[in-house]
């Protein structure tokens, strides 16, 4: 690039320089398409020289040519100078001069206009005293940083608080270096105070990791903590940071919800509760249930605390693991940096949408040999065309429901900077994701992030962060997806001849004689529906931090809050299709909720060392309160225009108003000791006492201890070359789960009209209520759940830092498992702490990175195994749950909520085979029916023959990443998958209730037609018989999959060759383009659809424990999309 750019030289006025940079950035953006236009340096002060034993005069003349420096000197001085040998690339001229004359015995002085005057060096100038502070990115002093005067042996090191003092030439250069940080060279330029912010080097072992209520060096950790590189999150095009993390972190299972704005399911190290299994998210100190509101771009640091040693500091909230996030922060003495990141892409539905077509379905209907079924075919012919038994109608309902592509885009801009006493960040993001359902469904989100920290006094820091989120989600009617699976292809979407339908002429499935609510017109199901949630949330945090004893004792007080509110409007228009699908009046359900949470933390941190003993002691106290209130109003007959959607514009239902809410308070005290001896022997001990308002027993105590040994620092490891770093660690601790609905612990007396008898309802009188009440015969008391966890791990870096990895084994036992136990003789259940469950497994993470010439490459992977086993249910034989017809159960020795039913051995092929089997004879079985395995061989098929058919929990999940970079290009490929889990295909199972339904093409075209035709699928007639619709292994399918999760190709370049020139990254990404799976349904990634606000129960829910787990059931699942995006990131 040319050195003389088109921009003016603004000299050294800092304000003008900044202005110039801003202008250049503007230019750069405007001229982005003209890449060869230079936005070169504002001063030609950096040049490269390569002097090989040449005369000083020649060297000076070279510099004059290459830069705008001019030399004034006495010829005699130069002629006698020794020849020069000096190689420096892209160096400041002042620095080159300093090196040049250092060895020549000459001195020089830079005058105005870069005129350099050379003098005889007889009078050597005196050194000046330079002092300052060396800080980390977070502004903390760094001890033991080497400070060296460049080109000399003069040096010193910073003290424990990062301060240094050194004597150096006023035009010299200081070199700051320390293990784990990038070495920096800073010209003194006559300054006497130079503060330095050290940047971390790529060496991850020295990385500062956020832990609970503080930070730690990665090297000093004794717990199992997953550190997420925010860059990895930004490679995935997702609204939700946890979605972006899928497959990336060992021990963390993420199940993506594909619906726009949908919340993913996150499980850390298995499932240890029937209640809350979601980890605790801590965003800038505030506890939140999910981070749906967070823009992935806003994340500065993210850690996943997996084991007890790491998580126990969060006590009763920590049982499901903790995800700590700090948003991006400005730094002191940091030049302003602007980052823009934007992408735009299209989503395409992916999956198996192949349903049986019209003729395939007709063939199945006819093959059943039941008049009511074949009549559907003949009616279709008569009504919608065709001849004989060959209807021509062939509606592909998925095709009607799904868009070919849907838009998604995101724009983020981020500004951060800092002076000596203030630093700040401002971030803005707008995200939009359209849904692929052919109806209004999408998600919009605005984020604003503000952060400000000031140091009014040297000992005091005051700060504020505020995250503001505003989102609008249009929820589709997910019933449409099931309807599309079940609906017959034999009727068209529209039927103009039907006089009674309004407002649109949708075909009634009743036209063909379907009279079951499930065979609605799926397109109308999606269409006659409006559901929108508008919400906002503010997360303001203020804090003050004081150094009580400089660099040793500090006190921090922080108030974190969360204010949120959302308004959901569900509007059903008045419409009529048939008796099963209609809404006689418009119905508006408005649900508003409001959240007010706060946490007040007070932390005292004492850090000190004596010789090789180093310790940090944390003492903390915390108070927190959560308040939630939700109000719902249901109104009939409101006008259709949105402006009139208020309860008093229609007829409010008498029972259509309800309110629910809660208040939970807790107070906590906690402490942590981190100790190491010579950095080799590590100890972390934590303790937390949590008091909660939720339970009858108030206080819980959660200790943990972690030990580590950095073997590679031992003397005997000095001579080996394999390991650069090797650490073993182990931990034990207790954690709690208070994500269980509070329980009053006394029998409820139900009163009011609902519980009063009617008397005198006779032929002539209406009857009256006589005040009554009812006492619940069953009630229980509960406390929190407790987890006891062991973890052993190895961290290593080997083969010259090319191979890094860690291996962990964990064993966590949830005790006092809370669930509602069935009580004999009643549908009522009794809640209590009734059992224990173990989760154990191995987590491995490996990464190999190397370079071959200019080609850098990386290959890595992570793998987690999970064994989930219930070990105690306090004598309960089993705990049934799930969908009644296709139940799951939980019993000792088995995993949580395994699918339960008969094992299909095959199909009875012949009447002889039927006759020979007493089970078949006893149950009226015919050829073409399922043959269930008689597990106990008693020639009787009964409850004892039902077995574990598999669990929704994967036994293994993994991620594989490949990356290469060459010059400015980089390419990364990421695979993600899981195995060992099962899916219950409820769509197929619906045939139990609705034998007339359509089905997937494989099922409908593979039905048994005679001996030998198939040993897997029943006959068409058999599909109508209850025998074949029992919960069985036929409906439980392998849910394993391997998915190409992400491919990104990027190109990085700079405009200008300055350090601070704008750098660009342009990239193209494909998310989830390919999947390999044997599952017959649409997608093997099945999330349980979250409940819509409108479906909240009318009466405040006292039902405890989400015991009816819908995990693993494929029902109404929003199809997965592949996303193809292009994007650009500009940092300046």
């Amino acid at each position, binding site marked *: 690039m040319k050195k003389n750019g088109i921009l003016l030289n603004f000299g050294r006025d800092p304000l003008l320089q900044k202005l110039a940079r801003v202008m250049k950035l503007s230019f750069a953006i405007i001229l982005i398409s003209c890449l060869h236009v230079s936005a070169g340096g504002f001063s030609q002060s950096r040049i490269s020289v390569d002097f090989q034993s040449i005369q000083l005069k020649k060297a000076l003349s070279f510099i004059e040519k290459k830069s705008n420096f001019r030399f004034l000197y006495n010829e005699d001085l130069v002629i006698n100078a020794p020849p020069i040998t000096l190689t420096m690339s892209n160096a400041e001229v002042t620095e080159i001069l300093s090196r040049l004359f250092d060895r020549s015995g000459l001195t020089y002085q830079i005058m105005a206009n870069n005129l350099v005057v050379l003098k005889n060096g007889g009078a050597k100038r005196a050194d000046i005293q330079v002092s300052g502070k060396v800080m980390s990115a977070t502004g903390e002093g760094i001890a033991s940083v080497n400070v060296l005067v460049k080109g000399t042996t003069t040096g010193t090191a910073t003290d424990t608080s990062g301060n240094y003092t050194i004597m150096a030439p006023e035009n010299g250069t200081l070199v700051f270096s320390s293990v784990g940080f990038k070495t920096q060279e800073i010209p003194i330029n006559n300054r006497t105070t130079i503060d330095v912010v050290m940047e971390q080097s790529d060496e991850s072992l020295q990385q500062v990791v956020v832990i609970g209520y503080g930070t730690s060096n990665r090297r000093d950790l004794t717990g199992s903590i997953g550190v997420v590189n925010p860059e990895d999150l930004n490679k995935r095009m997702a609204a939700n940071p946890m979605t972006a993390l899928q497959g990336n972190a060992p021990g963390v299972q993420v199940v993506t919800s594909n619906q726009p704005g949908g919340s993913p399911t996150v499980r850390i190290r298995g499932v240890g509760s029937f209640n809350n299994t979601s980890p605790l998210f801590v965003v800038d100190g505030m506890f939140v249930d999910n981070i749906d509101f967070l823009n992935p771009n806003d994340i500065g640091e993210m850690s996943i605390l997996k084991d007890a040693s790491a998580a126990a500091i969060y006590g009763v909230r920590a049982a499901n693991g903790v995800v700590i996030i700090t948003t991006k922060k400005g730094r002191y003495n940091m030049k302003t940096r602007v980052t823009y990141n934007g992408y735009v892409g299209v989503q395409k539905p992916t999956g198996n949408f192949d349903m049986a077509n019209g003729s395939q379905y007709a063939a199945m209907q006819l093959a059943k040999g039941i008049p009511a079924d074949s009549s559907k075919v003949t009616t279709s012919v008569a009504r919608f065309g065709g001849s004989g038994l060959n209807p021509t109608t062939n509606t592909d309902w998925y095709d009607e429901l799904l868009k070919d592509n849907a838009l998604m885009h995101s724009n983020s801009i981020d500004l951060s900077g800092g002076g000596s006493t203030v630093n700040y960040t401002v971030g803005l993001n707008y995200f939009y994701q359209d849904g692929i359902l052919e109806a209004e469904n999408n998600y919009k989100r605005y984020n604003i992030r503000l952060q400000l920290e000031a140091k009014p006094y040297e000992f005091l820091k005051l700060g504020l962060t505020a995250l503001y989120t505003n989102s609008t989600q249009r929820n589709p009617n997910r019933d449409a997806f099931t309807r599309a699976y079940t609906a017959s292809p034999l009727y068209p979407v529209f039927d103009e001849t039907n006089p009674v339908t309004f407002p649109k002429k949708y075909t009634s499935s009743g036209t063909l004689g379907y009279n079951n609510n499930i065979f609605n017109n799926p397109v109308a199901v999606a269409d006659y529906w409006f559901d929108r949630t508008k919400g906002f949330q503010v997360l303001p945090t203020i804090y003050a931090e004081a150094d009580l004893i400089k660099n040793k004792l500090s006190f921090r007080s922080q108030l974190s809050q969360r204010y949120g509110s959302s308004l959901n409007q569900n509007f059903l228009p008045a419409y009529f299709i048939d008796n099963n699908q209609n809404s006689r009046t418009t119905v508006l359900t408005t649900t508003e909720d409001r959240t007010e949470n706060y946490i007040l933390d*007070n932390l005292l941190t004492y850090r000190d060392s004596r010789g090789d003993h180093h310790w940090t002691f944390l003492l903390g106290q915390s108070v927190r309160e959560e308040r939630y209130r939700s109000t719902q109003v249901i109104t009939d007959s409101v006008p259709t225009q949105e402006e009139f959607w208020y309860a008093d514009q229609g007829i409010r239902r008498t029972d259509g108003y309800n309110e629910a809410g809660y208040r939970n308070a807790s107070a906590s005290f906690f402490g942590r000791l981190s100790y190491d001896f010579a950095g080799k022997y590590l100890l972390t001990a934590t303790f937390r006492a949590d008091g909660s308002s939720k339970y009858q027993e108030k206080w819980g105590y959660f200790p943990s201890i972690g030990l580590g040994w950095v073997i590679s620092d031992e003397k005997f490891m000095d001579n080996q070359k394999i390991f650069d770093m090797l650490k073993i660690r182990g931990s034990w601790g207790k954690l709690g789960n208070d994500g269980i609905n509070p329980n009053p612990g006394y029998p*409820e007396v139900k009163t009011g009209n609902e519980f009063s008898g009617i008397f005198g309802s006779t032929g002539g009188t209406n009857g009256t209520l006589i005040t009554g009440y009812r006492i619940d015969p069953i009630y229980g008391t509960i406390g929190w759940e407790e987890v006891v966890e062991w973890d052993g791990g190895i961290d290593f870096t080997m083969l010259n830092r090319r191979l890094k990895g860690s291996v962990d084994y964990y064993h966590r036992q949830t005790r006092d498992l809370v669930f509602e136990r069935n009580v004999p003789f009643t549908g009522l259940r009794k809640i209590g702490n009734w059992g224990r469950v173990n989760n154990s497994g191995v987590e491995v993470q490996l990464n190999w990175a190397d370079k071959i010439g200019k080609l850098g490459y990386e290959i890595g992977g992570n793998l987690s195994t999970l064994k989930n086993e219930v070990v105690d249910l306090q004598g309960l034989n089993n705990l049934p749950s799930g969908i009644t017809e296709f139940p799951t159960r939980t019993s000792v020795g088995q995993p949580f909520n395994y699918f339960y039913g008969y094992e299909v051995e095959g199909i009875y092929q012949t009447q002889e085979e039927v006759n020979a089997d007493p089970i078949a004879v006893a149950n009226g079985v015919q050829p073409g029916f399922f043959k269930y395995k008689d597990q106990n061989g008693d020639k009787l098929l009964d409850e004892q023959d039902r077995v574990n058919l598999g669990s929704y929990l994967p036994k293994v999940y993994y991620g594989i990443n490949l990356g290469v970079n060459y010059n400015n290009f980089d390419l990364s490929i990421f695979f993600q998958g899981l195995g060992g889990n099962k899916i219950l295909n409820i769509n197929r199972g619906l045939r139990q209730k609705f034998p007339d339904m359509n089905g997937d093409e494989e099922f409908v075209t593979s039905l048994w037609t005679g001996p030998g035709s198939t040993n897997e699928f029943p006959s068409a007639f058999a599909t109508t018989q209850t025998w074949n619709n029992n919960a069985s292994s036929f409906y439980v399918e392998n849910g394993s999959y391997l998915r190409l999760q992400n491919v990104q190709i990027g190109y990085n370049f700079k405009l200008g060759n300055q350090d601070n020139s704008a750098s660009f990254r342009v990239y193209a990404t494909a998310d989830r383009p390919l999947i390999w799976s044997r599952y017959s349904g649409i997608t093997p990634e099945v999330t349980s659809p979250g409940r819509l606000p409108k479906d909240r129960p009318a009466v405040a829910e006292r039902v405890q424990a989400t015991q009816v787990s819908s995990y693993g059931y494929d029902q109404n699942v929003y199809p997965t999309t592949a996303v193809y995006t292009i994007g650009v990131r500009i940092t300046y």
Partner: protein
Amino acid sequence: MKKIINICLFVSVLVATGCSKFLDRPLEDQAPPTVIDYTNLTTMYSPVSGMYRAAGGENPGFSHWVDLGIRTVRGDDVAKGSSPGDQGTLTDIKNFQNENPGVVSFWGNGNYWNDHFGLVLYINEALADLDRYAANIPAGDAANMALNNQYKSELRVVRAWAHMLVSRVFGDVPIVIDNNTITTIPKSTTTEIRQWIIREMDTAANFLEDARPNQASHVGAVTKYTALLIKAKAAADIAGNDNGSPYWDTVIQATDEIINSGKFSLYPDFYQLFKIPGKLSNEALYELQYSDFGTSTGTSVTPGAFFDFQGPNNNEPPVAGWGFLSPTAEIENFFQSRNDSVRLKTTILYAGATPTTFATTPSGDQIRGNANGQTRFMGKAYLPKNQMTPGRTGYGSNNNVRVLRFADVLLLNAEAKVRKGQNGDIPFNAVRTRAKLNPITGVSLQQVLDERRAEFACEWWGERYNDLIRTGQAATVLAPNGFAPGKEYVPIPQSQRDLNPNL
């Protein structure tokens, strides 16, 4: 600096002192602890009133639709309607496939069990509550003590009836009178259960009101005569087909007492007996009461989907439903063969032959046919449109569910007398002539049983099936459906056996 330390101290002190209050407040939006004032004897009927409401409910209670299906389909009078696959297990139950895995794990069986026994658990709580009131009745306050005993007896009558219904479906079941023993309590035999019922009813009858239910101080509450009928039914069950059984004397004695009280009479119009005019008539010994309180909007208390379940499908509300049950061709033929036109029109609601053709009811409503080709629906559940409170559209709303009626008393009395070699003509012909049939002199046992079949056809408590079992006729009558001795009862749900190993 000092200031900060002071703030620190202040905060910790604040937290330490504020803590107890901070954590000890009541939980928000949870039912507050209700304090029942057991010294206020004017509220002593409240637990009883609450029990009546529970008995009329679905979970728990007597009115759940699937329970109705399970109770009735095993007789030769009721078949499962709707499309064959829709709750097809009811057909398997009708066909006595008691080992069919679908039947064994049928959700409806568990539902039936829990609805009835769940009610029993509530009643046991209510009885304990009445004991708490009793403890506050001053010595010498005989009036309140009598009321307390009367109220307890009402609870015990309903509890006995719940046991009767659960035993009719599952056979040997436990007698649950103590909620603390539910995880271990063993089964009693069907005979033991009925013997217990007889003892319970004997005790209760001493304290209950000597009144017809529609004359009771709480109109429609069970009275002494309800207890006597339940006693008679229990005795008849034990006596079975053994004419020499002393329990037939018990039947005669109990039914005679009801008849001789002179308080009861048959409602003259059999068709209207099951409609609004027949609610809580002088024939009623127990009805589940519901009401829309005569208003077109607002609260309407209904037996859940009890009526909808039986209503004709593919029709317009208010005369519409799921069409889940269908009177059988056998019962239709039976009525026709004996020219029993009143009971035929009352018991069977006819629909058109196709989805577009209509049949007209005796009350003038048009009932359209359906895709399943089902033409017969449950007539006793039918409520004509013109009897409904204007504005209401729920099928059967404002109607009561008839449980026990005087016709049963008369026919049991006749049967017992015939079995004992006495003349049963008077009670027998009272029932027969109400149905506009000619009286018979010297009625035979089979004629009484046939009359029972006609009178109670398609009612909701499994009377026909119980009679077939009781008289031993099931082995022949139900053989075409797969019945054989030993298949009388549906298996107790495995889920219940898992919870109580003694079941």
